[in-house]
């Protein structure tokens, strides 16, 4: 049986993501307001129970001056006075770190119910947006000057994985196919209306940065989500089946990707080891995995690093359909950033929301029958900082 490292049974008691898409009239704060409006419209929440609030800097990916006081802006607007609150940023890992910090705050008695929120926009890749993002994640003097570009920086891992393990172009493409099949089951997934895709569709799409073509890349959009981590008894008063935080691991590896110590193992191994150790669980106990997937390479590498699939076998895993609907270990059951949508600075929310919804039994058409234990992995910057969460149905 599992043994949580946390006291007071911290659990995700409520989780809502707004439909990904373009919200042209919404500025950065309006995106947060849209998320919060949807969240409190959906869940029966008494404001007086919420004594924690974690937010990300609003406008991080698009504004010249992101709001580094988002937590205060929101607390005032919501009329709450938290005992535990901050604005924090770790790129895509921001929200995994929020869940972990919220669980520790609940465990240590700093707060009883912590609202975690993020909303974002993915800048238009043409017209300078891609360049601005490349500058943000590259060393400005020793990478950016070489025409570094986000797809190419990820491609460095893919190429090395192909070299070391014989991972094939088709195997990479099969990740996009698997994610699209899941997206067809999610009412809000951006690519649902586009129908299924084949490996040939992926390989024949426009080349971007070898080995990636267009369909190996996630779909830029706007969006956001919120969740609450609360003490067990509060969580159970909000929902019949909360998603208990059983383990959480954090690890920070390299900075600029050129300094990665191993291009096929970026730091997820250590965050996952810590998460499993805390939970008293092992990879074989996991029923569903939600893995940050900016590109098709990511789920292959992080399934291997988290121990869910042996090193070098991630490509075959997807090609055999084992992560797809009906497969032995469902992966990215909402369509992933590849087919649900990549909401820019809020993207690290999507896999947490889906992992929680699966454990809570709220996955609708795409619900996994036995989602007792979910693993959620997210990372920030160029796969530099890692968050692994393990969620479960029993505290």
């Amino acid at each position, binding site marked *: 049986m599992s043994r949580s490292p946390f006291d007071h049974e911290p659990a995700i008691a409520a989780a809502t993501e707004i439909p990904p898409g373009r919200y042209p009239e919404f500025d950065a704060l309006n995106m947060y307001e849209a998320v919060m409006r949807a969240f409190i419209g959906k869940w029966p929440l008494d404001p007086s129970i919420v004594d924690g609030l974690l937010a990300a800097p609003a406008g991080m990916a698009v504004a010249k001056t992101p709001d580094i006081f988002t937590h205060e802006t929101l607390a005032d607007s919501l009329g709450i006075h938290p005992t535990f609150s901050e604005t924090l940023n770790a790129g895509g890992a921001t929200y995994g770190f929020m869940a972990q910090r919220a669980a520790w705050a609940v465990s240590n008695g700093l707060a009883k119910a912590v609202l975690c929120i993020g909303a974002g926009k993915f800048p238009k890749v043409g017209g*300078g947006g*891609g*360049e601005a993002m*490349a500058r943000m994640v590259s*060393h*400005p*003097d*020793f*990478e*950016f*000057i*070489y*025409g*570094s*570009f986000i*797809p*190419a*920086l990820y*491609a*460095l*891992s*893919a*190429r*090395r994985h192909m*070299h070391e393990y014989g991972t094939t172009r088709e195997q990479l493409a099969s990740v996009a196919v698997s994610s699209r099949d899941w997206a067809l089951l999610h009412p809000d997934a951006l690519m649902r209306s586009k129908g299924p895709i084949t490996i040939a569709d992926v390989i024949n799409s*426009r*080349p*971007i*940065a*070898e*080995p*990636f073509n267009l369909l190996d890349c996630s779909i830029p959009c706007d969006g956001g989500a919120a969740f609450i981590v609360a003490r067990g008894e509060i969580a159970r008063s909000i929902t019949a089946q909360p998603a208990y935080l059983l383990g959480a691991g954090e690890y920070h590896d390299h900075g*600029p*990707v*050129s*300094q*990665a110590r191993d*291009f096929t193992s970026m730091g997820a191994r250590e965050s996952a080891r810590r998460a499993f150790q805390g939970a008293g669980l092992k990879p074989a106990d996991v029923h569903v995995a939600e893995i940050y997937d900016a590109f098709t390479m990511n789920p292959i590498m992080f399934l291997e690093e988290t121990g869910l699939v042996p090193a070098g076998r991630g490509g075959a895993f997807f090609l055999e359909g084992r992560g797809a609907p009906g497969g032995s270990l469902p992966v990215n059951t909402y369509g992933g950033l590849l087919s649900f949508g990549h909401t820019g600075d809020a993207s690290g929310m999507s896999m947490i929301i889906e992992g929680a919804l699966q454990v809570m039994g709220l996955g609708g058409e795409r619900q996994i029958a036995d989602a007792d234990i979910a693993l959620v992995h997210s990372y920030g910057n160029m796969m530099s900082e890692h968050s692994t969460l393990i969620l479960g149905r029993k505290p």
Partner: protein
Amino acid sequence: MKPKPLPHVGPFTRPYWDAARESRFMLQRCRRCRQAIYYPRPWCPHCWSTELEWMPACGRGQVITYSVIHEPPSEAFVSEVPYILAVARLEEGPQMMANVLGIEPARMRVGLPVRIVFEERSGGFRVPQFAPAEEST
């Protein structure tokens, strides 16, 4: 056409860029633990000594991984595509990113030996780049 980006030259990187202007490739070395360091910085990441020295590097390395870029990230690279972004391990130890110049993309491979060459940029800058080391042409 928009020129390619230039580095910010600061107090801790100036020797590197000044040497590059004269087509010399320099690395930092720690006086205490003797390890070579790239990218330049005011301390040794291995032992936190602040006693560093500049040394001429041999300028040879081997490609760890690479990508052939087809979609330019900005206007400055439109005329470059397809171009190669690579990370190589330098013979002195550290890893470094640069473009590999003067090779057909189809001939790129992990393990390719490279040598440092210099690319002229605006304002008299010269930027260290990789070129295949086995070619004599």
